[in-house]
């Protein structure tokens, strides 16, 4: 019994000495710092501006103006118009993206592949086609919408057309990938059950895939619409119209009153979009 106790005590000490987790955690933290330091240095991060009185005075004046937003009827009208334009850009852009994304998704998803059943003797030329379409979708989404907007401003001139085209192209590629992924995770079995009963791909799309993924797809699309709203404001800064363009003008003039009004309008818009998408998603679930 005594010997047994001693053994137990010894074993306990040995076991407890074997906790390697703290050392491992320290190593992970050190590694993370080691990796982050070059990134930090590469960005040329500096706090010098914060220490200069001039920068504080300028920002203070600007912020004081913020407390009294510009509420003249003329400017409010301008703001309302810009809001409507931003809303229109986001919505039209997303609809165009949808038109682009749906065929791309249908062409690339493996859910609707008949040759993958079995799998059938390889169809090299279907595979090449699918890879080509997938590469095209990847190309579309590889550039952020701001870059597309800069390109399209050259093409269409200043104005909302460039922003709509930019959203259509970049979101089209993004939606195509996500739609294809959603259908592969949620509709594979129902679709294949129809395909092995002799149904065609388009029939399977409507009878097997759509009812399986409808809710998730709509909910994701509404979320993307919210993102498009934010993006269209940013694209305004490169001259693509809407609230963003007005905001850029006011900020450049250091007109805090106007900037405050515009920012409030933007927040209102985003909150409204948020509420609308919540409502839509709630009604889908019900």
């Amino acid at each position, binding site marked *: 019994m005594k010997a047994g106790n001693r053994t137990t005590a010894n074993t306990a000490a040995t076991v407890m000495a074997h906790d390697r987790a703290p050392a491992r955690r320290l190593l992970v933290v050190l590694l993370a710092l080691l990796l982050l330091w070059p990134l930090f240095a590469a960005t040329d991060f500096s706090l010098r501006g914060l220490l200069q009185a001039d920068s504080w005075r300028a920002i203070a004046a600007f912020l004081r103006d913020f407390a009294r937003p510009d509420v003249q009827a003329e400017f409010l009208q301008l703001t309302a118009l810009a809001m409507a334009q931003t809303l229109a850009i986001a919505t039209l852009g997303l609809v165009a993206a949808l038109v682009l994304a749906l065929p791309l998704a249908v062409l690339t998803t493996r859910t609707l592949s*008949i040759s993958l*059943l079995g799998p059938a003797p390889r169809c090299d030329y279907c595979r090449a086609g699918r890879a080509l379409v997938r590469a095209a979708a990847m190309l579309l989404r590889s550039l952020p919408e701001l870059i597309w907007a800069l390109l399209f401003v050259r093409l269409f001139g200043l104005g909302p057309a460039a922003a709509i085209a930019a959203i259509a192209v970049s979101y089209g590629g993004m939606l195509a990938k996500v739609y294809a992924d959603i259908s592969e995770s949620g509709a594979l079995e129902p679709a294949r059950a129809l395909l*092995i*009963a*002799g*149904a065609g791909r*388009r029939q399977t799309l409507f*009878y097997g895939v759509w*009812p399986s993924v409808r809710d998730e797809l709509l909910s994701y699309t509404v979320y993307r619409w919210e993102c498009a709203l934010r993006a269209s404001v940013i694209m305004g800064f490169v001259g693509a119209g809407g609230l963003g363009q007005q905001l850029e003008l006011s900020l450049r003039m250091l007109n805090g009153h106007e900037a405050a009004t515009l920012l409030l309008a933007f927040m209102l818009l985003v909150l409204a979009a948020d509420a609308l998408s919540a409502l839509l998603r709630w009604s889908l679930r019900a």
Partner: protein
Amino acid sequence: MTPAFTTVPTASVSSLALQIAGLDLRLGRGAQSRAVLSAISLSVARGEQVAIIGPSGAGKTSLLRLAATALRGDGALQVLGQDPWQLASNKRQALRRAIGLVHQAPPLPASQRVITAVLAGRLGHWSLAQSLLSLWRPADPAGAFRCLQQLDLGERLYDRCGELSGGQLQRVGIARVLYQQPELVLADEPVSALDPVLAARALEVLQADCRARGATLIASLHAVELALQRFPRVIGLRDGRIVFDGTPADLDAERLQQLYAGDDVATLPVPSALSVNAVAAGCPT
């Protein structure tokens, strides 16, 4: 590459619903792959009704999926007189129209209505325009209702699949195949989620339908007594091999013991005195 069929002495190829010779199936890739079926040889005549039994993991589902052309193995396979993997894609889809697979857990979208799920059985025969129109206004509610009614589900016609229980969904899956009216019916544990009375009844509906249409039925069943009672031919699978193929009378207690050796859930008792009313077959008009 594919082994040739040894000549079939008694029947010509076209009178066979299914012919398999020296077929192996491996699933998984590379080093991870494992043999699921080995050296399967099997002939099923048109109009025959065959039950497949065996312990879980024996390869029953794989064998059925192989015959349904959902999986492809190494070896010779002819379904309804055709080698599916030698056919062009559109011809293969045409062959698949004549094959109906009842899934153990039917993969039906939760938001789809029962009527749509049943009517989807004949998509292979419908044009795209007809299929789309039927999503707006169901093309054949009467046909879908008749198939469901045989399985006591008529009143769920317009409900969504997500509102149904597992057993009810399984019967919707059977109704879809009844509506499809395939020449070869492959049923993977078609009644596993049903209570014994309902199971015998659903099986009788499926069997009567096949009998009336001259269609072939191959069903895997974990309820051995159900298989022995209701099928003139029983195939025993174990570890991916066929270890028995004959009449229920030939499958004595000792052989059954061997088939299920080491398996705890061997023979599930099924009430012997089941009164099943004969059902009219052929639900679609």
